[in-house]
């Protein structure tokens, strides 16, 4: 079941669209679920589908298409590193290698303490700052160097993110 908070947010979102096009709110609805739970389970997708009057398969398509949606627990802080062309040319391969080594996990994994999750992302439309990553899909950190990565991680460890 969707929580009261989530349905309130979805209702607010629905006001932006014509009444007969409720499915327009699907991306926002999934985001609200993920903000609340940290991930989106198939049950959540069915609930969103029922709430918006969509086919559950259509919600599943959306949830699997975008890299911002977590289909499994991705830790307290999810680091999404862009690996598309511009970032790769600017050294995102090194960024990924450094993060993997430092956190002791591979792409798509979560540290044993559940603090950090690392995943691959698609172009975030800010190639000028390549290579870059996003924190929990909310904050973008660009022009990454090892020193900058160290600082980001230290801030997160210290609770300053």
């Amino acid at each position, binding site marked *: 079941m969707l929580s009261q908070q989530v349905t309130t947010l979805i209702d607010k979102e629905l006001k932006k669209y014509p009444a007969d096009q409720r499915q327009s709110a699907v991306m926002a609805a999934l985001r609200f679920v993920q903000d609340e739970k940290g991930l989106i389970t198939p049950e959540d997708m069915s609930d969103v589908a029922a709430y918006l009057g969509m*086919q559950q398969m259509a919600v599943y*398509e959306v949830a699997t298409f975008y890299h911002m949606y977590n289909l499994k627990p991705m830790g307290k802080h999810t680091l999404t590193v862009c690996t598309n062309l511009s970032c790769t040319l600017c050294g995102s391969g090194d960024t990924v290698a450094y993060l993997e080594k430092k956190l002791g996990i591979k792409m798509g994994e979560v540290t044993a303490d559940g603090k950090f999750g690392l995943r691959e992302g698609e172009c975030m439309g800010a190639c000028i700052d390549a290579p870059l990553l996003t924190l929990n899909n909310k904050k973008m950190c660009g022009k990454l160097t090892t020193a900058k990565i160290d600082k980001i991680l230290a801030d997160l460890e210290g609770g300053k993110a």
Partner: protein
Amino acid sequence: MINIEIDGKHIETENGSTVIEAAHKAGIAIPHFCYHKKLSIAANCRMCLVQVEKAPKPLPACATPVTEGMKVFTHSDQAVKAQKGVMEFLLINHPLDCPICDQGGECMLQDISVGYGAGHSRYQEEKRMVLSKDIGPLVSAEEMSRCINCTRCVRFGQEIGGKMELGQAFRTEHAEIVSFLSSTVDSELSGNMIDLCPVGALTSKPFRYKARSWELSRRRSISAHDSLGSNLAVHTKNNQVLRVLPIENEAINECWLSDKDRFAYEGLNTSDRLTKPMIKQDGKWQEVEWQVALEYAANGLRHIANGAGAEQVGGLATGGSTLEEMYLLQKLMRGMGSDNVDFRLRQSDFSADGKQQGTPWLGLSVADISRADRLLIVGSFLRKDHPVLAARIRQAVKKGLNVSLIHSADDDQLMHIAHKTIVAPDALVNTLSQVAQAVDAKQSDGIAGSLLSGERVAVLLGNFAQQHPQASQLQTLAQQIAVSTKGKFGFIGDAANSVGGYIAQATPGAKGMNAASMMASPRKAYVLLNVEAELDCANPQQAMAALQSADTVIVLSAYKNKALDYADVLLPIAPFTETSGTFISTEGRVQSFKGVVKPLGEARPAWKVLRVLGNLLKLDGFDFDTSESVRDEALEGVDVSAKLSNAITGVEVKAEVSAAGMQRVSDVPIYATDAVVRRSVPLQATADAAIPKVWMHSEELNNIGVKSGMNVKVNQGSGSVKLACCADDKLPKGVVRIAAGHPATSALGAMFGTITVERA
């Protein structure tokens, strides 16, 4: 109309059409995969790229609307270069396993790659691999690496089937066709995805590795499993039916086929096929020669007719029997002097006989349903009873058809139902009567308001309404509503030949007994044609009692069935694939077909068996050489279209006082409708063929102190069965829904009436 030019050819086409439609109309082929005339435009395969004058880049022909004066080049250097480029990309990840692919020889990718593919691949890297999926017993998704992600199957589910069971998950090179949570695809139309798949990703599971497509002989036939009369292409090899595909007929089945029609053939050659005549002597069955069995049967009939009287003989056929078979059965009965013949085995109200002027039929053509703007459906499990017709109605709803439903169960029809009233069976007449009154009172809302606001109104009575104990009153009310709304009304026939049975005169005359009275007051002798009495009759308890008490029961059947218990002679007859015959569809379309394979073993077409029985009984007019001559005699001087009429007079409509206790609501499950379907292993493995449950409103379950999932004991008449119960809060209170036509419920009584349920 606007004028365009394709490859230098002047074409006049409708405004709003696309380049590919205009090209196809003019007979110009444009290669394509994702485009399908019955589905929405996806434009994702890019194979149909063409050059358009003044456009800087090639454009997809399927998604480019025509404009006045447009010049299109489908074979110019630019177009061919683009098409070849797309082809190369499509083949990069394709496994190229054509030698072991079931689609080989009838594959769009294979065909088009002959024209546009290169002789060798420049791609040396590893190909992507997509894992196989299990999406049920009918459609095989074993080799999803072959998929080119055209999404035809996805769009079919969304648009035609009404439920999006497959979807394209993930993105880019990870994109794949999946079902939600790896569930099965349960649509009753799922087999069409096999036809739509342009490659070998979705193939037929039962047909898998059975034959190469070029080894098969293709023969035309007509569907025997529902009343639509779908056109079939039956593919055979070595005198065996190996698969069934649709033949496109826009006026009937369009290009679709229900899974029932497509996969029923798997039930043709089962181990319980009756392949030799058998007679029972001293309680033991023995196989005998045809001559012996036929004389035994003829003697049995002669003995009863001469002794107890011809009126002690009754003939019963199923509505799936051919026109020729039913004609000869009634001729045999009437030749012996009996008027007892019927094919309406699941009907319980025969009071319309003598009061209706003609042969009940759909009331309008199937194609006219697409043009209707208001439709009232009374008593129908529409989607399961008539899958392809339901798909047609679903399309019409999208174009503005307003559908209302009056029924005793509220199954999801996967289409928008504007108004519905779900009531217990004994309130059905009253409910329809109120609608009729509201229509006369020009009420502006509800079902009446919907019907009154339409210009092309139709009222259709489904199987449930035809089987209802007050069917003639429902018919009268439907007529009243149709007259008041200047619309049409009719019946969606419940069997392949439900119109043909009337035309063949396989109904009792004024003196004769109908199917119900032949069971209620048992006869001494019965001739059964295709009948599995415990599954095909309105009241299996009564039917079995009548047959067991009879002196002689002569069974013409393709299978050794329960008739072994009560029959005296079993005559092996050919199912519809092994005999020529005629079905008259629910819209009155006369369609003859030929046998596609030879009869199995010593089985013979039933019309021949009945002819010889007539000869042995020395009856006049049984000298037929061909089934065509039987048909010609049956239809001689008969203008079928003139005979079709649903008009009824002289039936009094009276609201029945509701009976005490729980009432039974019965559907005949989609894969329990006839003997062939019941034996098709793949169909019986689908979700629709699950063991029937006892469905009740959750409050009714509480009343008897059981919970959903627990076993309950159901009592009706002299029998009882134990089944799992399940809550369905969309059912009206006071009803118990239990399927009929299924072995698990055949110990029960009539399809309607009171029934008790208790804790097991």
